[in-house]
């Protein structure tokens, strides 16, 4: 799946979870700088699982720092699912 499409979905989930404007989420944005807690990372992860229809996060979801890291992780997981 295209990285831009995944990033759009990550940005939407992060913006909605953190109640910030979508434009504040850039690939290099550290979500903790926008007030994200470990629980927010779980919330974002669950929302992305709903969007991509796969059980992709397990317990790894609390280790991300930037939006780009989440995008990379989702892309790698989706490619495994597709295989």
């Amino acid at each position, binding site marked *: 799946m295209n990285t831009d499409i995944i990033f759009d979905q990550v940005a939407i*989930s992060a913006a*909605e*979870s*953190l*109640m*910030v404007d979508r434009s504040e989420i850039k690939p290099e944005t550290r979500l903790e700088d926008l*007030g994200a807690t470990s*629980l*927010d990372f*779980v*919330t974002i992860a*669950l*929302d992305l*699982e*709903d969007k991509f229809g796969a*059980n992709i996060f397990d317990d790894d979801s609390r280790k991300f720092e930037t939006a780009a890291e989440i995008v990379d992780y989702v892309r790698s997981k989706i490619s495994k699912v597709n295989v």
Partner: protein
Amino acid sequence: MTLPRRVVITGMGVVSPVGADLDTFWSNCMAGKAVATTIPETWKEYTTFKSNIWAPLPPLDFGPLRLTLAERTQRDPSALLGLLAATAAIEDAELVCEQISIKDNTFSLRKVVPERAAVFIGSGVGGINTISNLHAHHLLARPKAALNDVRSRCKHDIGAELHSINESMRIPSRFNPFAVSMVMPNAVSAVVGIKFSLTGPNQTLCEACAAGTAAIGQAFQAIRHGNVDLAISGGVEYVSDEYGSVFHAFDAGGVLVRNCDDPQNANRPFDTERSGMLLAEGGAGIMILEDLSHAERRGARIYAEISGYGETFDAHNIMIVEPNGRAIMRAQKQALSTAGLAPADIDYVNAHGTGTRVNDEIEARIILEVFGSDILVNSTKSILGHSLGASGGIEAIVCALSLRDQATHACHNLEAPLEKLNFVRESVPQRLRSVISQSFAFGGHNAVLILRKWQG
């Protein structure tokens, strides 16, 4: 000695099968527009029920709450119902919400000292929707995957049958990692306390069908004795799930209404032909209670005064009201004593009135013995079914609106009363000075509130 403080109702919010706002709810009650319909067809795939009707909630609009992603995905429906009714009650009380955190979607209440504001909410079963759905996931996720694997290796016709069986085992797409905070019964009180940043006592009264009444009673006492100035209180319940598990539990217990071929006439509290209670999908009845001087200082509109409360326990049987009614009468006397009233001062009893053979017979006899045959009696459950822990909160709202309007609703479907009591047969003007709302519960809990007409 300092006199106890007076406690008044300044705001109310309701979610019920007959309306999810105060005006719709009350006009439907007064018009006798009862709700009873067949249970979801999918539930019948899991068992054969003896009863098959219930009172579902109308479509609910959570839009005004502007729920965050976290709130939408990490709250049991019971907590959301509580939030909906509490928010409506706060708006009704004209308390001004000021946003504290956009991210957390939390507020403070202007002119309310957070440390002097409490939350007392009753619930019979807490987050049972979450328990039921996630238990199904826990139990079936792997067997379903295994079944799917076998299906893929079977011939077409057997594979189709296995697919059909697999599809009938409905489970959520995942196990929710927030399950604990959704399941715990105190979630509803906690969610309301967090939303409005109230840091006084925060309690969930878990007393089955008396929970809502007991919660209002505890709030009344906390304000009356000066512990807090304001309380959000009432009852909340949501008992539906994908499989009809809670309905099954009550059905197996033999307490649900029969004669289901005629749903509109099946639910008949206090009628000689009654056959059981009509289970409601859920509900919420929330009140804003305030110390009178607190309410007056901010110029609040007052619906009614709460003047008495009594609470006792049968210590008899976990499912059956004590036949001699001693503990219930003791609760009534406590409430009368608190209010400084005699039985003759009470004009109307909003009865527990479930429609079960045992409850109604004992309750009618007690009302006759304590209050005589002239007192007005009705059962709100005759219109909207039984919403368990929410029912006491909703019925207290009925009492407050009855006092405001000097009229109450009829006892629906009552044709052949089981006792010579003065049951309300039509919604006509009445003289209502002080009224009682009483609730009894599995376990043996009894709670009795007295509300007084606000004289201004």
